[in-house]
């Protein structure tokens, strides 16, 4: 486990990148498009934000570089720690949503 493992809650950018990489290796542009689709156009990420986040996620051990043959199309994949963090954050968000629904329903 990396010493700089990010604590929960994850930032929206990190959460969406982890989600985009779940089950599939993707390159940068593919990640941006998947994040856009997953968030229904609410999270729009440019190259600077994406690669800044990916660098930090690689350092934290959440993401790994995959196929690096073409320097313009480097593929990234989730690590086991990345999957664990994604599941933990999803659980946390579900619990928050449950509490919010309960409170809103009781008003």
């Amino acid at each position, binding site marked *: 486990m990396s010493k700089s*493992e990010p604590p929960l809650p994850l930032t929206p950018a990190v959460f969406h990148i982890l989600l985009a990489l779940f089950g599939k290796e993707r390159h*940068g542009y593919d990640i941006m498009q998947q994040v856009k689709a997953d968030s229904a156009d609410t999270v729009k990420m440019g190259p*600077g*934000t994406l690669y*800044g986040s990916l660098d930090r996620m690689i*350092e934290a051990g959440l993401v790994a570089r995959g196929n690096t043959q073409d320097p*313009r199309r480097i593929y990234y994949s989730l690590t086991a720690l990345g999957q664990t963090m994604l599941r933990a954050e999803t659980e946390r968000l579900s619990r928050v949503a449950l509490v919010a629904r309960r409170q809103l329903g009781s008003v």
Partner: protein
Amino acid sequence: MSQPTRQNESRSFRLYARLLELYPPAFLQRHRAEMLQNFADLEGAAASKPALWLLIGKDLTMSLVSQFIASRLGRYVIGVFVAWALLFAIGYFFRGPTPGHPVLHVFVGFLLGMLSMYIATRLYRAPQNSSHV
């Protein structure tokens, strides 16, 4: 997937390539080729140039600020400003406003701030950029 060649590079592409020079060298070494390819793809898919540059402008601003704050140089600069503000506040607290010489406190604080910046850069030699979560 569009792959721009020297001949068909647009003005936007060339401008973006120049703007990338604002990022730290270590970051560019890792990601320049990917970022240029991504820009070419975004440009090909963009509904309009203003929409493209709105996204890119926001992205450049946010990521450059984030890179600067995460870098050692950024931390020095923030440290200098904090030290400067602190010295100014201490001077103001003990001496109160100095009629006719309000710039004096600021100037002395600035000099001490620059001195601390100099000492910090001498201690660390060449400031390098660091990346962390």
